[in-house]
C-alpha cells in the first residue's frame, strides 16, 4: 500500500470571504465554517476563533485537535466510518494543511482538563502552541447527556477539519512524502538482511470518554488486528478520548504518529518495517489477557524480530503494556516500550502501576506530575471557570489574577506517549 502525502505549509490563518489557501495563508469563511460545523440538530451554537503561535491566548478545556486533510487520489475519504464510507484508506494521494489545526472546546464533564497556551511557559509543553489553530466553541442543545455530548463535539470537529481540508485539494503542495508498505511476504523479501520490526499501537478504549475508533468501530469491541501504517494518515483511527490531556492521543497525533513516521524513516536503511498491530486497553482482566495473547500471536505470525509498543494513558493500561511486553518477549521477540510517568511532584515515587523485568528497553515521555505555573492570558477561549476543578489541579489552582498552577497533566500532549511532545525523564 502506497500513499503520497502532499504537505501544504500553512504559515497564517485569516477570516475572509472565501475558504482557500493562498501563499501559505489559510483564508476561512467564518460563517460557512460555523454552519458546517454546527450541522447537527443536537448543536445549539458554534463560534469560531483563531489562535496563533505567540499570542496571549489560553484554550480550555480542549476536547480534540484535528488536522485538516483531503483525499486527492485513491479510494475512500478522510475519517472512514464517520465522514466517509468504510472503504480501505491509506493508498493514493492525500493533501495535508500542515501547520493548521482544528481545536474543539466543549465542557462535557465538570472536571475537564486540556489546556493549550499559545505563549508563555505552558506553550513550551504542548505541540499545539506551534500550530495555527482554528478553535471551535461548540454548545449543544439543553439536556444532552455526556455520552452524546462527546459524540456531537467529536463529529463537529471532523466536519470542520474536512471542510478546511477541501481547501487543500487544488493547492500545490510545498513537498510530497511517499510512504509504502508491501503485502507481508513481499515486504519481508524486500529487505531480507534487515531486522523486521512491527509496531504495537495500544489504544485507550475503556468506555465513557475513553474511546478510540478504527473505521468507525469502537476499538473496545475488536480483537487486535493488523493495519497498514498509511491507513492512519487518512484518519482511520480517531479519538473519542477526553480524559488525561497530557497522554491521550488527539486525532491530530494519530494521523501524524511519530513512531510510524520514524519507523518509515529507517525503513530500508536500518530496519524492515512490517506494519502495525492495533490493540485495545479494556477494563476487565479477561479482556486484557485475550488482547495481549492475540497481539503476541500476530507479531509472531508477521515474523517480527522486534516490536515497538506504545501505551495510551496511565494506570490501568500499564497492565496491558506489561502483558504485551511479557508475552511478546516470551516468543523471543525484542520489545521497546514507550510510556510516560506519574512519579509524584518530586519525581521520587513509583511511576507506573505495574512493571516487568522484561521491560528493559523503555522510553518515557516525561513526568506528568511536574508542577507548572501558567501566567494569565489576555484572552481565554472556552470555559475558564473549569480551571477551578481541573483534573491535575487542586483547590486554589486558579489564582485571582487568572494564572493557573497545576501539574503538567492538564496540558494537551505534554507527555504524549507516541513521543509527539518534547519531554522525557531520566533516572538520577
Amino acid at each position: 500500500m502506497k500513499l503520497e502525502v502532499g504537505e501544504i505549509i500553512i504559515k497564517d490563518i485569516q477570516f475572509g470571504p472565501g475558504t482557500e489557501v493562498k501563499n501559505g495563508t489559510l483564508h476561512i469563511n467564518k460563517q460557512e465554517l460555523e454552519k458546517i460545523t454546527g450541522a447537527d440538530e443536537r448543536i445549539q451554537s458554534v463560534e469560531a476563533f483563531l489562535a496563533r503561535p505567540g499570542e496571549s491566548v489560553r484554550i480550555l478545556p480542549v476536547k480534540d485537535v484535528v488536522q485538516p486533510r483531503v483525499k486527492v487520489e485513491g479510494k475512500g475519504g478522510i475519517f472512514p466510518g464517520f465522514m466517509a464510507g468504510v472503504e480501505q484508506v491509506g493508498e493514493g494521494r492525500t493533501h495535508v494543511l500542515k501547520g493548521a489545526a482544528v481545536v474543539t472546546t466543549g465542557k462535557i464533564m465538570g472536571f475537564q482538563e486540556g489546556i493549550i497556551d499559545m505563549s508563555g511557559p505552558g506553550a513550551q509543553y504542548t505541540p499545539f502552541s506551534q500550530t495555527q489553530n482554528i478553535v471551535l466553541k461548540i454548545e449543544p442543545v439543553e439536556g444532552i447527556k455526556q455520552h452524546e455530548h462527546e459524540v456531537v463535539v467529536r463529529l463537529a470537529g471532523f466536519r470542520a477539519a474536512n471542510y478546511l481540508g477541501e481547501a487543500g485539494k487544488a493547492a500545490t503542495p510545498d513537498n510530497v512524502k511517499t510512504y509504502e508498505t508491501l503485502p507481508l511476504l513481499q515486504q519481508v523479501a524486500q529487505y531480507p538482511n534487515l531486522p523486521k520490526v512491527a509496531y504495537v499501537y495500544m489504544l485507550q478504549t475503556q468506555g465513557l470518554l475513553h474511546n478510540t475508533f478504527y473505521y468507525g468501530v469502537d476499538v473496545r469491541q475488536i480483537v487486535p488486528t493488523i493495519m497498514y501504517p498509511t491507513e492512519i494518515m487518512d484518519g482511520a483511527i480517531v479519538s473519542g478520548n477526553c480524559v488525561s490531556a497530557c497522554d491521550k492521543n488527539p486525532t491530530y497525533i494519530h494521523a501524524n504518529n511519530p513512531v510510524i513516521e520514524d519507523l518509515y524513516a529507517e525503513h530500508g536503511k536500518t530496519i524492515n518495517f512490517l506494519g502495525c498491530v492495533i490493540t485495545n486497553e479494556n477494563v476487565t482482566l479477561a479482556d486484557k489477557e485475550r488482547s495481549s495473547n492475540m497481539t503476541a500471536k500476530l507479531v509472531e505470525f508477521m515474523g517480527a524480530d522486534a516490536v515497538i509498543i506504545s501505551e495510551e494513558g496511565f494506570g490501568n493500561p500499564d497492565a496491558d503494556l506489561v502483558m504485551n511486553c511479557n508475552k511478546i518477549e516470551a516468543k523471543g521477540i525484542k520489545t521497546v516500550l514507550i510510556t510516560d510517568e506519574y512519579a509524584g511532584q518530586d519525581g521520587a515515587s513509583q511511576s507506573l502501576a505495574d512493571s516487568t523485568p522484561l521491560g528493559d528497553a523503555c522510553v518515557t515521555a516525561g513526568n506528568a506530575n511536574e508542577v507548572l505555573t501558567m501566567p494569565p492570558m489576555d484572552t481565554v477561549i472556552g470555559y475558564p471557570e473549569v480551571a477551578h476543578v481541573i483534573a491535575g489541579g487542586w483547590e486554589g489552582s486558579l489564582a485571582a489574577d487568572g494564572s493557573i498552577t497545576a501539574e503538567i497533566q492538564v496540558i494537551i500532549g505534554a507527555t504524549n506517549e507516541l513521543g509527539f511532545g518534547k519531554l522525557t525523564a531520566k533516572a538520577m
Partner: protein
Amino acid sequence: MECARIFTNNPAVGAAYPDATHWVEGNVRDVFVAVRDAVHRGARLLSHPLCGSVKPWESPYRSVWVLARQGALDFASLRLIEGAMAVSGRPWPHHAHYDASIREDYQLIDLELMKSAIKNSDK
C-alpha cells in the same frame, strides 16, 4: 463459594447493582484496602483496580469488580492491587471543594466504566 462482587464507595454503582455491591464506607483508599484484604483471603480481581484515565487521586469514587472466594492467594491480583495503591496515595487528596455536579460526573464515569466491564464479560 465464589461470587462476583463490586467493591465500591460509589452510590451510583450501589444503586445500579444493589445485589452485587460490597459497600465500602470511605474514600478510594478504603476501597483499595478492602479489595486487598479480600485478595489476601483468596479473592481474584475481575476488573483492573485503576479504571480509565481518571487518576485515582482525582476521583472520590472507585469500584473494583472482584470474584470473592476463599482459597489460595492469587499473586497476579495482589500485584495489581498493590501497584494501584502504590501510585494512588501521595498524598491522599481531599475532595471537599467538589460541588454536587462534579461529584455526580465522577460517579457517572466510574459507573459507566464498570458497566463497560460487565457488558464485555456478558457477551
